[in-house]
């Protein structure tokens, strides 16, 4: 099962917060995961999601992360993914999610699927 840990104190909004998602981010935890992402996002202006301990992810998980990023942008908040994860990278590639530029919703140019640029 998944386990979510949030850093920082509860209560008032903080400048920066890290949400660590370990275990699975799949259809079976989809509802639960959405709640946690939503809660974490409400409590901060800058949310980092640590996926380094992710062991399983599927299309619904990718959708949730993308939606979370979208919500953050709409709320004027910052959202990014932390931690290299091979499982995640493979599913992202399989699903054809990786891209060179963000989509038209990506108003802050912070798309989470854009590959690291090496050419600057």
């Amino acid at each position, binding site marked *: 099962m998944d386990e979510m840990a949030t850093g920082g104190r509860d209560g008032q909004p903080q400048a920066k917060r890290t949400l660590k998602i370990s275990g699975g981010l799949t259809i079976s935890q989809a509802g639960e995961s959405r709640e946690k992402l*939503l809660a974490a996002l409400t409590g901060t202006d800058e949310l980092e999601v640590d996926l380094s301990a992710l062991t399983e992810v599927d*299309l*619904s998980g990718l*959708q949730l992360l993308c939606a979370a990023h*979208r919500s953050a942008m709409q709320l004027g908040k910052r959202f990014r993914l932390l931690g290299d994860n091979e499982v995640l990278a493979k599913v992202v590639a399989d699903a054809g999610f990786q*891209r060179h530029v963000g989509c*038209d*919703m990506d108003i802050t140019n912070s798309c989470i699927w854009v590959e690291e640029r090496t050419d600057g």
Partner: protein
Amino acid sequence: MIDVHRQAFKEEAYELLSELETSLLELEETPDDADLIGRVFRAMHTIKGSGSMFGFDDIARFTHEVETIFDLVRNGKLAVDKKLVNLTLQARDQIKSMLDNSEGEGADLETSAEIIAGLRALGGAAAPAAPPAELSPPALAESLPGAAGEKVTYRIHFAPGRDIFAAGINPLYLLRELRELGHCNVVAQTRWFPSLAEIDPEACYVYWDVILTTDQGLNAIRDVFIFVEDDCELSVDPIAVHTAFHEQEEYKKLGEILLERGDITLQEMQEVLDQQTRFGELAVSRGVVTPDEVRSALVEQRHLKEAHQEKQNAEAASSIRVPAERLDVLVNLVGELVTVQARLSQTASLRGDADLAAIAEEVERLTAELRDSALNIRMLPIGSTFSKFKRLVRDLSGELGKEIELTTDGAETELDKTVIEKLNDPLVHLIRNSIDHGVELPEARLAAGKPRHGTVHLAAVHSGDSVLITIEDDGAGLDQEAIRAKAVERGLISSSAELSQKELFALIMAPGFSTAKKVSSVSGRGVGMDVVKRAIELLRGSIEISSARGEGTRILVRIPLTLAIIESLLVRIGADSFMLPLSLVDECVELTREDVANSHGRNLVRVRERLVPYIPLRERFSIPGEPPPIEQIVITQVSGQRVGFVVDQVVGEHQTVIKSLGRAYRNVEGISGATILGDGSVALILDIPQLLEAAELEEL
């Protein structure tokens, strides 16, 4: 039209078969090479696919069996061994004879059945549980566009229903299946994603644009989606066909792709195009398309570019197919042009008109370039012939119980197409000789302190305007004494004749000369070497033999690059003009009346303290009139022998376009052809080797 395609198929199939042979022979040496196995499989697959498409059903059916076996090999279920290679080579020959049998019908069915039985036995041993039919790839009988063997690029739009997850289907698996069909680019479209607050976490919002290049056909793609078809938005459109027969047009421009997809109208595109900048960026900034649409289209463009590239690489060796006759016509026309140009230059220099001279010079330069590139088109690497010999050596040495390896060098050396064709038979003869007479049996080799394995080395290299081809073996070498004895017996030389090694070896090229004690099916009937010699001479080449007893024999064949145009030396006797191939000419010296008187009626002249025999051409051709006080001797070198030809006057070098003589003059001795000079007169081209032979016969 159908016939054109059938012809194209045949040509392609022949090409594939010769490639197949090479691959198989290589495979025998490196049985684990997955690359080679793949190549064999693909060749079979293509022959089968296109064969059935153009109605060569027998071939398709037969090839299918072979392909089935190589599918097993490819999947590691069957190992490559000598037996398999043998059978496959037989199968290859069978396919070829089916092709030769004009319509692919009526081929020897028994042989086919035998080969298939042999292959099945091999395959059955590897996978006893599976009947061959199940192992075959699908779509043999399909002859629709996109049937097996033909690579088609499809654009697949796949938008699963919202509740697809609930149905227990993971779209990622479908994508994975698509990837297995061929080269695949997947672009996920995320624009329908709601925000976190609105999202139904168990619904599917994503849709995909997939660009897939596959030879498996449309149905194979549809099959992937068979379980979700009713519950998704799916379109599969072929966007490019990559056949072997048609040149692919350029890959599509980004705008065209967007247009085709209906993301943009023609008018919108035209408006954007009016401002020449990067189309994609502009279209986005205009708000006509979204970045996502552009991205997806860009992926498609890149994909097609790659598919295009891949095909080009595969066809690097032969990019367009042109009938050989058309090239011959082109070369003939260039020949005419060269002749006319020579006349133009001559006229211009006679007139002394500076303007005309300048034009003539320009024409001369262009003609020379045109001539070179026209001749270049007909140049082919000699390697295609070499690979045929590999098979020959393999089969022959097996038949004779010898272990012989053929090594080659300079396969990329280019020669005129017609020369290569005419060179084939003589080379086969020479190689047969090396295998039969040259290389010894393994036991004899070991006894002589040589490795069991004999080697025949075939090499080609450019040298000036000719190509040198060497055939070298490490066998027993020529027996000088046996040759001498035989030559004396045949009355070719007197028993006391002093001959250099070179002259002695040249004797084996005399008609009917063979020292082999018994006649084998391979060679030794004594019809070999003289035929070889004549064939090489007809190509205006020469042949030379050197050999060391016990160490091997080396045969050197020198062949001019092309038959159509040669450099030659223009000479005059009386009012007549003659040409001598410049490649044979060594030097020119003067012959005075005094010299003639001093030689006491023998046709010999002393050049740098060595005697050179000469042939007075005025006498030989019975040309009336008195020779000038100082004549010229053109000294030529043929098969290591220096012989002079006496002429009145040496005019100079000349680019000679060879015209064959009419039927009535074809067999005139000593003349190999004719050419037209700048002033419109005809000059005869001398057949030097034949003149020498005739002169030698007269002396005896």
